[in-house]
């Protein structure tokens, strides 16, 4: 038998119960922000010449997320992928689309230096946290550096400096540098010159040709007359294949060396012409550390091909992002703590330990490698924890 009081009590009970449930389900505004998935924009080349680089970087990023159980700093992650096609003219508008229309919290990109400048212009203004997984143009962490932009790859200066240093220390007295006449080429030449001089050598001349021309003959024919003990070069991709083959065919006695990209991912096409070439880079074959072995095995299981330096750079971009987000427990609005945590982060990279310079460029060991049996075998560490000079940066 029910009395009115009992009914009232029951209603009150239901109301109270509903209120409790509601309170636990409808969170406060702060909590809403934290449980909403973190939007990470991947602005990378998924078509064209650099498509595989973009894919390997993406695999690297996804591997970190899988290791962390699908969450970064306690938040789910939602990827927004955008193919930048490596077209510099589309850079600003693509970056704008991710930042403004899709409202990404973090932007990871990209490979091509020209496109990077477009991204940089947009995120410098919007303040979006940005991680650079490849493009090595100095400006991004020199005179145009920004507090919200971090790079986990390299600057063109770094490997070239180490190569120059290695030559100088080996007793090479005079050397010249050959490259395409574009920003990356000029920056690498500057690094090589400084490294060579630091090692006690003398920089003789810079030989250039127009990008991306492959008629190297007029330059090769004058090498013998330069009176140098070594030639260093910065070319990449197909240009590197053609250059190394032409250099070998020209029968030049002066030994060839270079920035690591000269023989990176190109050895199949270069064949015997590349045998014995020494290059400098922040990664290489035969790096037998538990971290690297585990990384390579996991990458192969995921992507069904061997990992490369680009996969490492993408992996580390995500590792650095994870370190930052863990420090702020997913609250990406707390920029000060976030940036400070990323600046201080010590990342256990497959390439070895890395940190960030005050200008937000990666500080890393650069290895001397030698082409042996179709691999870039690591010979030694030339420059331990080498930082880019970061000239002109004010953060």
């Amino acid at each position, binding site marked *: 038998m029910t009395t009115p009081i009992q009914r009232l009590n029951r209603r009150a009970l239901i109301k109270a119960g509903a209120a409790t449930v509601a309170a636990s389900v409808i969170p406060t505004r702060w909590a809403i922000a934290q449980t909403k998935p973190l939007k990470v924009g991947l602005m990378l080349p998924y*078509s064209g*010449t650099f498509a595989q680089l973009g894919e390997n970087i993406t695999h690297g990023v996804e591997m970190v997320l899988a290791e962390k159980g699908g969450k970064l700093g306690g938040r789910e992650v939602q990827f927004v992928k955008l193919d930048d096609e490596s077209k510099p003219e589309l850079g600003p508008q693509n970056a704008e689309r991710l930042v403004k229309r899709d409202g990404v919290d973090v932007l990871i990109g990209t490979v091509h230096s020209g496109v990077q400048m477009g991204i940089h212009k947009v995120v410098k203004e919007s303040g979006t946290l940005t991680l650079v997984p490849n493009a090595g143009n100095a400006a991004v962490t020199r005179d145009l550096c920004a507090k919200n932009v971090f790079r986990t790859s390299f600057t063109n200066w770094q490997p070239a400096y180490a190569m120059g240093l290695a030559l100088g220390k080996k007793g090479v007295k005079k050397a010249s540098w050959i490259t395409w006449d574009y920003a990356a080429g000029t920056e690498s030449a500057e690094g090589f010159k400084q490294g060579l001089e630091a090692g006690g050598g003398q920089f003789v001349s810079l030989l250039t040709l127009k990008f991306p021309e492959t008629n190297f003959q007029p330059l090769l024919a004058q090498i013998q007359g330069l009176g140098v003990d070594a030639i260093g070069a910065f070319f990449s991709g197909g240009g590197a294949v053609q250059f190394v083959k032409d250099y070998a065919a020209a029968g030049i006695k002066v030994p060839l060396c270079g920035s690591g990209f000269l023989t990176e991912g190109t050895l199949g096409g270069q064949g015997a012409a590349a045998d014995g070439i020494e290059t400098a880079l922040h990664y290489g074959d035969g790096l037998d550390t538990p971290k690297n072995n585990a990384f390579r095995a996991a990458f192969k299981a995921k992507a069904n091909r061997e990992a490369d330096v680009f996969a490492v750079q993408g992996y580390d971009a995500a590792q650095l992002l994870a370190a930052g987000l863990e420090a702020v427990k997913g609250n990406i609005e707390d920029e000060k703590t976030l940036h400070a945590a990323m600046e201080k982060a010590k990342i256990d990279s497959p390439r070895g330990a890395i940190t960030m310079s005050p200008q937000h460029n990666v500080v890393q060991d650069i290895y001397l490698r030698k082409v042996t049996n179709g691999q870039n075998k690591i010979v030694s560490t030339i420059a331990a924890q080498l930082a880019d000079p970061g000239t002109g940066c004010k953060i």
Partner: protein
Amino acid sequence: MTLSSFLAQILNSLQYGLLLFLISSGLTLIFGVLGVINLAHGSLYMIGAYTAFVVARAVGSLWIALPVAMLGGILLGSLLERFLFRYFYKREHLDQVLLTFALILLFEEGRSLLVGNDFYSVPIPAALDFSIPIVEGFSYAAYRFVVIVCCLVLAAALFVWIERTKMGAIIRAAAERPEMVDALGIDPRRVHLTVFAVGTALALTAGALNAPLSSVYPNMGDNLLIISFVVVVIGGLGSVSGAFWSALLIGLIDTMGKAYAPKASGLAIYVLMAIVLLWRPNGLFGQRGT
């Protein structure tokens, strides 16, 4: 600058100049006889190079790729003339420019769909994969000599055809006095088709021949198209022998510029073109419109 490296540069100039001749001879013939400014000529060179790459990859031999590119060029040129260019001879130059520009976009997009956008190298045939020392500390890949010889043979064949055959006489007449050719009752359509097919085949052959030395990559013909126009303008529009000497001259200036004055080399050939145009507005061997 040592004497031996200078000699090596002369050889480099010759090789580059002969390649330029192969490309620009087709361009100058097509302009001279048909009056069409073919901006897609550089893309035809690109198609030749990619043909060499694709065929060499499939059958493993460049020796098959070369005739394939040559015959493919004749076929492609005939189709383009018969179904496209034929309707544009009477149109304004602007229409022709738009047509050939559209062809550049179509050819590049087609290349992107069929082969992709990667930079590929084309292996030199194994039998020729050795170098011949020419001066102290500088050797020359044997294949480069083959390219020089092939270019000279093709140039000679072209001269004989233009200067010693009836068809050649008609072509020369069509370039200089087209109304006379019409008045003599010669079917101009056959002349047009032949010239366009040969011009296209020359561009494709040049691309295929040079593919092992340049690698193949997107838009590889763009730069050569511009230089070829310079060659044609300096040599005189429509003049094959003009194109020959002018190509050798440009090859020499460009190579020496790259070797000894890299900063100025980009400008040198254009300065030369400006001087020639001021001195002889019709080019060194030009006759038309005087």
